[in-house]
C-alpha cells in the first residue's frame, strides 16, 4: 500500500477527478444492487399472485432507469480513472525525459539505451496499472463488496449470507497465489523467448559463416531445440494460467452449494421467499469479481512499486556537470589556455591525459594530430565540459571554463564530432539544429561553405529530404559535411573539428578549410585530424601520443624535427600523389 502514499502527490493533484470517478463507482455499486432485488420482488409478486399492471410498470421503469443511470456513471468513472492513469504515465514520462537531457556522460555510460528505454516503457506501464487498475480494484472491491454484502444481510438473510460467503476469501487467496506463480513462470517464458530472439539474431547476422561451413541443417536443429524450450516454458505458464477461471468456478460452486442447501431449507421453513432466494443467487455472482480482484490488487501493487523504485532511482541520479552559483553569463571570448596536469576517466584505471599545456590566442588555429586512441578527442571533450574532474585548469578569456554558465560556454563553441549523429528529420532541420528559426538562406550559406549544398540539391526532396532510419542513407562524407554546416551555422567563437573531414576527399577538404579560414577570420579554431593536410596551416600543431604531447611546433618546424609528424606527412603525400595519378 506504500505505493499509494508515494504517489499521493499525483492523487492530490488529480483529487477532483478521482473524487468524481470514485463517487461514480460507489453509486454504480449501489445501483447494481437494484436489478437482482427487482427480479426477486417481481418473482415474489407473481408467485403470490399479487402482481398488478401498475406495480409491474413501476418496477420495470425503475429497472430501466437504473440501466441508463449505470451506463452514464460507468462511463464517467472509466474515463476518470483510466484517464488519470494515462495522465500519470504522461507526467512521469516527461520527468524521465527531462531528467535524461540533464544527465552527464557517466550516466549514459552506466545505463545503456536499452535499459533506459525499458524503464521508460515497462516501468511506466507498471505505474499506469497502479493508478488505473490499482485504484479501480481497491475502490471497486470495497464499494461493491461491502454494499452487496450489506444488501445480502439486510434484504435477504444474515445466516444465509454468513454461510454463503465462507468460501469467498479463498478467491482472494487463489488469485494472489496463482498470480505470483504465474508471474514467475511467465518471467521464465519471457527469458526463453529472448534467448530464442538472440539465437535468431545470431543466425541472421552470421548467415554467411553458417553458409560457408554448410551448417544450415545443424543450425535449424539448434533453433528447434530453442523453440522446444519456449514451448515447454509456456506449457508451465498455461498450466497455471488455465487454472484461473476453473478455480473461480470451483470456489463459487461451493458457495452455490451452501446457498441452495441453506436457502432451500429456509424457504421450506417459510423464513425467506423464493424471490429472496433468486435475489440472493444473483448477489453471490456479483461478489466474484471484487473478491478475486483483491488478490490481483496485491500483485499490481507489488509490481507497480518495484517499477516506481526503479524510476525513482533513475530520477535520483545527479549530473557531475553543474553550474556554479553566480557563474559568468558573458559569452566566452579571448585567449584559451589549456593547463592540464592529468585526467583519467571516472571508473577507469590509469591516466588518459598527462601534462597537456597549450595556449591558443583569440583568432588562432591549433592543430592536434596523433594516432587513433592517443587522446585527441579526450582533450576536446574536456573543453566541452563533458568531464569536470581533472587536475589543472582550462581558462577561456582568463576565467576557468567551469566558472561560466553552460550556455555562455557551449553556445559559443561549434563542435563537429567524429561520429556524426544526425536526427531522423529533414536535412534542413538537421543543419539548423541549434536554432530552427533560422532562414533557408542562412542554412544554404552554411551548406555551401561545407560543400554539401550541391549534394543536397541532388537528393529527392532537396533540403526537405528526410535522413536517418526512415529516410535516405547518407555517405560518411555527406554526414560529416552536414555536421560541419550545423556547426558553421551558429557562427561560433570557437570551432572544433574533431577528425571531421576523414571521409571527404582531399580536394573537398581543401575547399572547406579555405572557406572556413575566410569566414572565420579572427575567430578561434581547433582541428584534430589524422590527415596532416588538415592541420598543416595551423599556427601551432601538437602531436599527441599515449595522452602526452610528444612533438609541437609549426608545420615547418615539425618537419625539421624528423619525428612521427614528418613520417606521417611523407607517407600521406605519397598516397595523395598516387590517388591523383590514378584519377
Amino acid at each position, binding site marked *: 500500500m506504500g505505493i499509494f502514499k508515494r504517489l499521493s502527490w499525483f492523487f492530490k493533484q488529480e483529487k477532483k477527478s478521482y473524487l468524481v470517478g470514485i463517487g461514480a463507482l460507489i453509486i454504480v455499486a449501489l445501483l447494481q444492487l437494484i436489478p437482482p432485488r427487482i*427480479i426477486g420482488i*417481481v*418473482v415474489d409478486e*407473481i*408467485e403470490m399472485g399479487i*402482481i398488478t399492471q401498475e406495480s409491474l410498470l413501476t*418496477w420495470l421503469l425503475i*429497472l430501466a432507469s437504473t*440501466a*441508463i443511470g*449505470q451506463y452514464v456513471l*460507468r*462511463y464517467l468513472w*472509466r474515463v476518470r480513472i483510466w*484517464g488519470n492513469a494515462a495522465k500519470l504515465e*504522461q507526467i512521469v514520462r516527461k520527468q524521465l*525525459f*527531462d531528467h*535524461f*537531457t540533464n544527465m552527464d*556522460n557517466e550516466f549514459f555510460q552506466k545505463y545503456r*539505451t536499452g535499459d*533506459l*528505454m525499458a524503464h521508460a516503457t515497462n516501468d511506466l506501464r507498471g505505474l499506469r496499472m497502479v493508478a488505473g487498475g490499482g485504484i479501480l480494484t481497491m475502490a471497486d472491491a470495497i464499494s461493491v463488496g461491502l454494499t452487496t454484502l450489506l444488501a445480502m444481510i439486510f434484504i435477504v438473510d444474515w445466516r444465509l449470507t454468513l454461510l454463503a460467503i465462507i468460501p469467498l476469501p479463498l478467491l482472494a487467496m487463489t488469485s494472489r497465489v496463482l498470480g505470483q506463480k504465474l508471474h514467475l513462470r511467465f518471467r521464465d517464458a519471457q527469458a526463453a*523467448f529472448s534467448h530464442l530472439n*538472440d539465437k*535468431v539474431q545470431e*543466425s541472421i*547476422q552470421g*548467415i*554467411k*559463416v553458417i*553458409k*560457408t561451413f*554448410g551448417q544450415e541443417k545443424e*543450425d535449424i536443429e539448434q533453433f528447434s531445440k530453442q*523453440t522446444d524450450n519456449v*514451448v515447454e516454458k509456456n*506449457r508451465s505458464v*498455461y498450466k497455471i*494460467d*488455465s487454472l484461473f477461471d*476453473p478455480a473461480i*468456478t470451483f470456489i463459487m*460452486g461451493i458457495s*452455490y452449494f451452501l446457498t*441452495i442447501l441453506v436457502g*432451500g431449507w429456509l424457504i*421450506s421453513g417459510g423464513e425467506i421467499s*423464493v424471490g429472496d432466494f433468486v435475489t440472493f*443467487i444473483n448477489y453471490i455472482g456479483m461478489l466474484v469479481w471484487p473478491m478475486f480482484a483483491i488478490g490481483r490488487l496485491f500483485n499490481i501493487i507489488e509490481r507497480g512499486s518495484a517499477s516506481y523504485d526503479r524510476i525513482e532511482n533513475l530520477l535520483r541520479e545527479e549530473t557531475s556537470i553543474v553550474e556554479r552559483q553566480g557563474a559568468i553569463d558573458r559569452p566566452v571570448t579571448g585567449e584559451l589556455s589549456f593547463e592540464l596536469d592529468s585526467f583519467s576517466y571516472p571508473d577507469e584505471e590509469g591516466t588518459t591525459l598527462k601534462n597537456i599545456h597549450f595556449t591558443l590566442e583569440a583568432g588562432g588555429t591549433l592543430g592536434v594530430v596523433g594516432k587513433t586512441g592517443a587522446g585527441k578527442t579526450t582533450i576536446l571533450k574536456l573543453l566541452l565540459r563533458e568531464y569536470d574532474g581533472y587536475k589543472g585548469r582550462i581558462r577561456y578569456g582568463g576565467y576557468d571554463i567551469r566558472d561560466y554558465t553552460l*550556455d555562455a560556454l*557551449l553556445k559559443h563553441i561549434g*563542435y563537429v564530432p567524429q561520429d556524426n549523429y544526425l536526427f*531522423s528529420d529533414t536535412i534542413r532541420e538537421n543543419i539548423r*539544429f541549434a536554432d530552427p528559426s533560422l532562414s533557408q538562406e542562412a542554412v544554404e550559406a552554411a551548406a555551401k561553405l561545407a560543400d554539401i549544398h550541391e549534394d543536397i540539391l541532388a537528393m529527392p526532396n532537396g533540403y526537405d529530404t528526410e535522413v536517418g532510419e526512415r529516410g535516405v542513407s547518407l555517405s560518411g562524407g555527406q554526414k560529416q559535411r552536414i555536421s560541419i554546416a550545423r556547426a558553421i551555422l551558429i557562427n561560433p567563437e570557437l570551432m572544433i573539428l574533431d577528425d571531421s573531414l576523414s571521409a571527404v576527399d582531399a580536394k573537398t577538404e581543401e575547399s572547406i578549410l579555405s572557406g572556413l579560414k575566410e569566414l572565420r577570420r579572427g575567430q578561434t579554431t581547433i582541428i584534430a585530424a589524422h590527415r596532416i593536410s588538415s592541420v598543416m596551416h595551423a599556427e601551432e600543431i601538437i602531436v599527441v601520443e599515449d595522452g602526452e604531447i610528444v612533438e609541437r611546433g609549426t608545420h615547418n618546424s615539425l618537419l625539421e624535427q624528423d619525428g612521427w609528424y614528418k613520417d606521417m606527412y*611523407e*607517407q600521406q603525400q605519397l*598516397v595523395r600523389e598516387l590517388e591523383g595519378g*590514378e584519377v
Partner: protein
Amino acid sequence: MEQQELQKRRTIPFNEQMRILKRILTFASPYRNQFILAICFSVALAVTNAALPRIIQVFIDDHLTVGGVTIQTILFFASLHFGVTIVRMTVWYFELYIFNMASEKTVQNIRHQLFTKLHNLGMRFFDQTSTGWIITRATNDTEAMKDFWHVFLTIIQGVFGVIISLGAMFLLDVTVTLWILIFAPVLLLVIRFYQVYSSRTYHEMKSKLSLLNTKLAETINGMSVIQQFRQEKRLQKEFEETNQSYFNSRFSMVRINALLLSPVINMLYTLAVVLILALFGIDALTSPIEVGIIYAFTSYANDFFRPLTRLMDSLSLFQDGVVSSSRILTVMDNEEYVPEQEDDPEAQITNGKIEFKNVSFSYDDENYVLKDISFTVNPGETIALVGHTGSGKSSIINVLMRFYDFQKGEVLIDGQSIRSFPMRELRHRTGLVLQDSFLFYGTIKDNIRLMNQAITDREIIEAARFVQADQFIEELPGQYDARVVERGASFSSGQKQLISFASTIVRDPKILILDEATANIDTETESLIQEGLERMRQGRTTVAIAHRLSTIRDADQILVLDKGHIVERGTHDELIERGGSYRDMYELQNIGLQS
C-alpha cells in the same frame, strides 16, 4: 520489401485478409486434433453453463414453489449443482490448456518453417534485406500470432456461449426468446460501431506510441549533440508535444471503450431483463406462471451478453495478427533461393583444381561486375586477387562459394562443373575465412566446432595448435571452454581471426579461400596470423584476396582486377618488373610499413 510492407499496413482489403487467414491456418493443421478437442470442450463448457441455471429453475418450479420439500430433495439439487460445477471446472481447464498448447505449437511450427525457409534463401536475399527486418519477422511477428490465436478462442467461446444460451432459452419459452432476438441487430450495430471507431484510434495510438519511443531512443543516442548545442529545452518541449499527442489518443481510446464497450453491454443486458420481466409479468397478469423460468431467463441473458465485451476488445488484436501474418507470408513467398545444384551424388572434390573459363557475372542481370574472367589454379597452388574496392575480387568469391549464380562461362573444380557438386560437398571441401570473424554465443570449442558434432575435442585442440591459437586460448580461464560473450567483444580482432582459422582448418578443406582483413590487426597477433596463414596454405589450393601485398609475395599467380577485368597477371617479380599499377601499390605500402 520494407516499402511494400509499409503500404500494406494501411489497408488490407477483406478478401486479402481471408486469403491470408486461410494460408496461416494451414500451419495449424498438424495440430488439428487438438484444436478439435478444444472446440469440443468449448461446446461442453457452454452446455454445462446452460445446465446450471436450469437446475435451479427446476428446483424452484418443481419443488420450492410447490412446497413440502424434504431435506433429501434439497441435498440432491445442491449436490447436482455442485457436481455439474465440477464438470464445468474440469472441462474449462482442459479447453484452455489444450487450446493454448495447440496454438503454442502452431506458432512453433510457423517459426520452424520460417527459419528453415530463411536457410534456403540465397545470399542475394540477405544482402538486400536488412537484418533487423528479418529478425523482427521471425520473432515479434510470430509472437504476435499467439494473441491472434487467442482471439480465435475468444470467438469460439463467445459464439458457442451465445448459441447454446439461445438454445436453452428456446427450450424454455419460444415467444420470449424470439423477443430477445430483437437485441441481436442492436448488438451487431454496437459491435460494428465499436470496430469502426476503435480500430482507427487504436492504430493511431499504437503508431503514436512507437513514435514516442523512437523519439526517446533517438534523443538518448544523440544526447551529446543535443547537450553540445544546448538544445535540451527545445527538445523537452518537442517531446512534450509528442507525449501529449500520445496521451490524447490514449484518452480517446479510453473514451471509446467507456462509451461502447462494457458499460453499453451492461446496459443492454439490464434492458433485456426489463423485457423478460415485462413479457412474463404480462403473462402472469392473466394466468399463473412458473417463476423459476424468470430466473433461468435472466441468467441466460447474462450468458448471452457477457462474452461480447471480450470479443469486441480482441478485435484489434485480430487486425494486428493479420498484419503480422501477411509479413510472415512475404518471407515464405520469397523466391531468392540458394543457387540450384544439379546434384551428382558421386561428385567429389579430391584435388582442388579450380578453373574459371570466360566467367561473367552480374548481381542484377544488367551491370556485369565480372567480365570474361579466366584463370586456372592447380592443386596446392595459391592465387592472389588484388584490386580496389568494387574491382570484382569479392564477386569472384561469391561465385566460387556459390553464394550467387553466375550467368556466363564455366567454373570447374577438378574438371567438373561447380554446379554438379552437392552443396554439402562443396561447402565441406572449401574453407572460406571471412574478413571480419563472426563469433557465436557459446564457448571457444563451440566456435571452432561450429555445430559439427563429428569433430572431437582432440581435433579442436590440434587445429588450434596448428594455427597457434592455443597460446592465448590456454591462458583464458576455462581454456577451450571459456565463454564467448557479445560476439567476442572481449577478444582482439587478431584473436578472433585465429579462432576462425582454427574452425576452418579443423575441417581440413581442399580449397582455401581467404578474404584478408582490411582493418589493422593488433601487432601482438599480427605475426601469428601471418604464420598461421602460411601454414594453412600448405598443400591446399588457395584463393586469397589480399590488401597487404607483402603477404602474397610468394603466390604462384597474382591477378590484378579493375572494374571486373583482369588487367595484370603474373608472379610478384614479374609484375614488379612490368611497372604497372601493382608496382605502384606495392611501393606505396612498403613505405607505409617502414614508418
